[in-house]
């Protein structure tokens, strides 16, 4: 599995360097959440959640329904504002003050639980739109694709195995292909941190396998947070697992550590 040269310029992997867009990751931490609380009409979706993700890490987040996984992603991407607590991207970027678009530009990409792609656009256009570029109104009016950009789209198309479907309308793709297209769109953004909400749901075993390989190859250059219910998949790719329960972190560690944690067994695995 190869990742295109343009998406992985190597900067992300080197610790201790001040990266593009002013992301200061001097301490090796790309995302830092502390004491996040969110409540909806009295229901505490997140309750003093603290979590940190290292540069190049692949983190799996599991937890029963209503544990706060999606809300956590909403908080990171700016869709939901926390009632209290801090979220920092690198050392300096306070995510609670940025809009969704600004957070995305800063280098965080997100894949939704339900694949969200532009159904009326072609696969190629989907990738083109998500490509890292100046995304202000004036620029998009006059922009055209450079050959380097076309190459980068072609590379990504190959990575997500849709190079034969570049001109197809995205809405006609199969569910698994849509999942891949969305992952491809994320890659085009060249993010430092990818948040993936149930990326293999609805995929065939074969597709799941390949997705796992893709994620493993991405780790190191990017940081990944994968929320998944498919335990077999998690087991295959996970190095470090965080278990959420009732809006907080229940346990954290390797697969075997987590599996042997009595608290986890009680609320989740032991059922």
């Amino acid at each position, binding site marked *: 599995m190869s990742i295109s040269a343009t998406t992985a310029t190597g900067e992300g992997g080197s610790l201790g360097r001040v990266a593009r867009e002013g992301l200061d990751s001097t301490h090796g931490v790309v995302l830092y959440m502390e004491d996040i609380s969110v409540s*909806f*009409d009295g229901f505490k*979706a997140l309750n003093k959640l603290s979590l940190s993700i290292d540069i190049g890490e692949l983190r799996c987040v599991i937890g029963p329904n209503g544990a706060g996984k*999606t809300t956590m992603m*909403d908080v990171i991407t700016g869709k939901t504002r926390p009632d209290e607590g801090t979220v920092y991207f690198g050392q300096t970027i306070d995510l609670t003050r940025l809009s969704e678009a600004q957070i995305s530009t800063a280098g965080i990409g997100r894949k939704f639980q339900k694949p969200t792609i532009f159904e009326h656009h072609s696969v190629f256009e989907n990738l083109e739109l998500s490509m890292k570029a100046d995304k202000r109104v004036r620029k998009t009016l006059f922009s055209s694709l450079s050959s380097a950009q076309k190459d980068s789209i072609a590379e990504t198309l190959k990575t997500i195995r849709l190079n034969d479907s570049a001109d197809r309308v995205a809405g006609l793709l199969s569910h698994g292909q849509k999942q891949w297209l969305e992952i491809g769109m994320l890659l085009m953004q060249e993010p430092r941190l990818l948040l993936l909400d149930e990326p293999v749901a609805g995929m065939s075993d074969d597709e799941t396998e390949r997705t796992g390989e893709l994620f493993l190859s991405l780790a190191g250059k990017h940081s990944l947070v994968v929320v998944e219910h498919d335990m077999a998949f998690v087991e295959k790719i996970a190095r470090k697992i965080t278990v959420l329960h009732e809006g907080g972190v229940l346990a954290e560690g390797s697969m075997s550590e987590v599996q042997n944690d009595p608290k986890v067994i009680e609320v989740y695995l032991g059922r």
Partner: protein
Amino acid sequence: MRILLTISLWLFASGAFALDAATVNKLGFGDGDEKIAAIAALVAEGDPAAAALLQAATDGELQTAGKLVLIVKGEEAVNAATGAKVTPLPEEREDVILNNRVRRELGGAMAALKLISPDRATRLAAAKELTGNADQAMLPLIKKALASETDAGVKQLLELTQATLELKTGTKESRIAAVRTLGLSTNPNTKMLLLGILEKSKEGGYAEPDEDIRIEAQKSLKALEGRLAWGERAGVLFTSVSLGSILLLAALGLAITYGLMGVINMAHGELIMVGAYTTYVVQNLFKRTDFFDWYLLAAVPASFIAAAAVGMALERLVIRWLYGRPLETLLATWGISLMLIQTVRTIFGAQNVQVENPAFMSGGMELLTGVVMPWSRIVIICFAGAVLVGMWLLLTKTRLGLFVRAVTQNRPMASCVGVPTARVDTWAFGLGSGIAGLAGCALSQIGNVGPDLGQSYIVDSFMVVVLGGVGQLAGTVYAALGLGFANKLLEAWQGAVLAKIAVLVFIIFFIQKRPQGMFALRGRALDA
């Protein structure tokens, strides 16, 4: 108006004519001043024939032919002075032209003459009219009327008028008494009168040289102002609640169809119109019977059923196919509203139709002069409350309500547990439409009923629901009352149109601050 007509007919018919020919001629041929003098003279006579003549002048039935002054009704004419029939009708006749000044004078004169009518309501109306524009010449007549008046309400009004007149001419004692009487009044015009006494002229002296009278006037003014201020507050409060109740009625149906079901029904206003026209039809049916005053008992359910039937038909034929496509629903229902408007125009004509109040709803409770609480509005406030309670009970206590809530909250789940979702949709939409029909029935009692009735309420009712928050019955109530108050308070301050604009602009900004309305639930499901 009907009463007035019968009286004038009665006066006309009794025809004991013996009017001074010179006076009549002055009315017919004289210039403005002479006409006014003639009117004053006729009033002083206080005679039914004089009343008939003045009535004819008011109605524009006075004509001249040669040297004769005629009262012409259709093809028949009588000599205005003698009352004798004039046949044949003279070919060359000219209308007696009355300018505005003379017309004003005529109005006062008619009122003064009606003070001697045997009918209490006529006398009351006349006394009311006179409080504004009585004339020195009428003082004797008013005194005469006062002496024979038995009704307290009429008497009070007449005393006030008498005081107003005597203030100008009487002796010092009678003037002080007059000022005191004025202090008891609740009429805003009296305030102007008292202020006039206290006014300083340019040279620094007072318009009223007598200090005793000024002191008395000061006291009266203070008492009057206090009373007026309360009256005004009560008046604003009442009209606010009244407008709020109307908005509530118009919006309650929407709270179901839009608020609960999420259907944008732009034809909602036209469902209100259907209710109003149903009331009109029922009223016409009852007109031929002896039970006219009870027609509302039939009109209320009839308008509910008619509007509900139309609503259910719409749901089945059009809206059903557009669930989940709100913008298309909006356009299609707008089309429906156009067709309903045209249907009504075709059947009933483009003009407004008359819906009469039953007797118990006409008139009102008079708090103070100028602050009347019409019975029709009081009834509507109660009616709105009753509809609200009924709807609440229906939604929370019945099986249909349970189904509606289940379907609106989780359609697939409701369907799984055996709720007939399609039928529930139809019934729920019918319920919302029926409530719109009730609103129409209520509106027909206080406003014009015409094909455009609905158009004027649709923006308002959507604003209420939007402001109150979708799916919130309590929010709808608060929003309706709040908008009623805001509208009326601003209206007192800046006039009706600007008030309405201000409220709309306020809502536009409000929605942007709180897009989900006042009482919205916050949650992650909202814009998924």
